[in-house]
């Protein structure tokens, strides 16, 4: 008699800029061994860059549809002709009227042939993504022949109809899976789907979508899952601050029976987030450069700042200052200057108010359950910023203790990964947390 292969859970995370995926054994959350985690290398080695990040991009070229790095490269080459790639799938999938958004014609800058609605391009991208996931699974000896339970991570739906919108997303995945069979190798890295074949392939996929079982895990829950490893008995209440590119989301979770559920009344979304901070920093840098007088000069400087903003922001928030060379001069930006900017002060004020309101909800819920500890965690690109770290350390009272958790958990430094997981963990956190989350934590389970 042979043992059945171990069952694994695979989670796909749509990021605004990149998609990620990770897998873990089904019971990993309760019997955790970091060496069993499997972040999946979705990117092709020959395309370079970080192999765990798959660019969320589709580009409609003259004769074919390109994906990922090939789409980005081609879009950059044709930018002077005002051609752009379709990006930010995550934003599209979380609008309140998803059906309408999906059936909107793609703008001319994205689809000059006027052939596709947004839905078509999303299905093509999902087919490319599923192909990349399967390629990564196939080369992993533990995953290749294992039963896989699949789920995806998404922000909590604005409209509250998680099950209804989840059905739409799973249907898109089903069509994408069917589409893969029709277009096959055209989805391979660096290739592209022929425009001539595209309408027929889409029609065939839409007529006979695959019946996929996929669960839905909210991103805040995924963050709670990886944060609460080893705290199964004590982390009954959590507050999560997720500072993304477009929005800052605050969510609170509470254990009710065996389930870890979101407290909807504690959910807050702010429109100020990473992109907003970029503009604050860039405006401060412009203020500090009175020698850039003409509009053309200012535009060139703004573009240089934005090209380097990831590094500038990291240095400002983690080292207290950043420097940029531009046309032979040095531009300095310090954290203290940023903290004095009115826009930044307004953002911190709004964020603090929103956080305190959410914390009040989870604090009341904890006390009602006779619990006296709340875990607080910040995730996303801005998680390590001092003002975010200060935020998640506030609010302890005599009755309730707030325990700030690190954005990168200690186990990400496990020697099993030879020091290489922790540096990339923030980018993979939601996919990893989504794979670790037990089924009780799902917003929509595969059998619901």
């Amino acid at each position, binding site marked *: 008699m042979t*043992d*059945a*292969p*171990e*069952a694994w859970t695979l989670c796909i995370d749509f990021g605004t800029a990149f998609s990620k995926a990770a897998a873990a*054994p*089904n*019971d990993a959350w309760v*019997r955790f*061994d*970091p*060496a*069993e*985690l*499997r*972040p999946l*290398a979705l990117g092709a080695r020959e395309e370079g*860059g*970080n*192999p*765990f*990040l798959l660019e969320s991009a589709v580009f409609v070229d003259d004769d074919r549809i390109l994906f990922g790095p090939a789409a980005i490269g081609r879009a950059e080459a044709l930018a002077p002709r005002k051609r752009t790639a379709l990006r930010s799938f995550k934003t599209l999938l979380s609008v309140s009227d998803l059906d309408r958004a999906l059936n909107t014609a793609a703008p001319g800058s994205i689809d000059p042939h006027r052939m596709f609605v947004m839905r078509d391009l999303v299905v093509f991208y999902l087919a490319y993504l*599923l192909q990349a*996931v*399967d390629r990564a699974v196939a*080369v*992993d*000896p*533990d995953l290749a022949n294992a*039963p*896989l*339970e*699949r789920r995806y991570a998404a922000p909590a739906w604005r409209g509250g109809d998680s099950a209804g919108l989840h059905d739409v997303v799973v249907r898109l995945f089903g069509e994408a899976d069917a589409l893969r069979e029709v277009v096959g190798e055209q989805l391979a890295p660096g290739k592209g789907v022929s425009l001539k074949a595209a309408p027929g392939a889409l029609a065939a996929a839409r007529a006979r979508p*695959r*019946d*996929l*079982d996929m669960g839905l895990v909210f991103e805040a829950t995924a963050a709670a899952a990886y944060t609460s490893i080893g705290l199964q008995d004590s982390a009954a209440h959590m507050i999560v601050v997720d500072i993304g590119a477009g929005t800052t989301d605050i969510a609170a979770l509470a254990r009710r029976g065996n389930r870890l559920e979101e407290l909807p009344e504690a959910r807050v979304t702010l429109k100020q987030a990473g992109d907003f901070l970029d503009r604050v920093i860039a405006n401060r840098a412009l203020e500090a450069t009175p020698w850039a007088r003409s509009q053309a000069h200012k535009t060139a400087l703004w573009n240089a700042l934005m090209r380097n903003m990831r*590094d500038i922001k*990291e*240095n400002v928030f*983690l*080292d207290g*200052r*950043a*420097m940029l*060379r531009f046309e032979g001069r*040095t531009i300095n930006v310090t954290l203290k200057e940023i903290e004095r900017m009115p826009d930044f002060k307004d953002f911190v004020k709004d964020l603090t108010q929103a956080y305190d309101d959410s914390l009040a909800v989870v604090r009341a819920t904890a006390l009602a359950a006779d619990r006296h500890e709340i875990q607080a965690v910040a995730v996303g690109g801005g998680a390590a910023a001092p003002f975010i770290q200060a935020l998640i350390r506030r609010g302890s009272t005599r009755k309730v203790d707030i325990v700030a958790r690190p954005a990168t958990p*200690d186990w990400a*430094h*496990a*020697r*099993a*990964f*030879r*020091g*290489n997981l*922790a*540096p*990339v963990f923030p980018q993979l956190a939601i996919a990893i947390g989504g794979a670790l989350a037990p089924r009780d934590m799902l917003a929509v389970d*595969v059998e619901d």
Partner: protein
Amino acid sequence: MAAKQKPQKKPAKRRPARKRAPASLTDSLAEAAWADADLALAQALCDFDEIARAEGARARADALEMLLLSLMRAARKRGLSRLGEAGACVAFDPDLHELTGKPADKIEIVAPGVRRGDEVLVRARVRKAP
């Protein structure tokens, strides 16, 4: 996703705990971490070249500062962090501190060390506390 798979109700028998992730995975993770660190190191190299050509104390100081910021970014992208704070006075710990001169119970950190997770890569350089 070739076929629909019903999730199993009960977890299958587990393998013994692993000590190490598969080599292919750690290699890919290293590649990912290095992809970002490489850019920061390349930037540091350019900044160093600029130092060599800088004229005047101010320009030289700016170039040196840029070099430091680039190196700090590269270090973070490799998961390295500082160990201790320069000027801090703490109890001597031979696992964390490298003491030059006479032994002392209380020491001052002259230069922080470097760690990755719980692994000490370079011990902090210390001297007897004043």
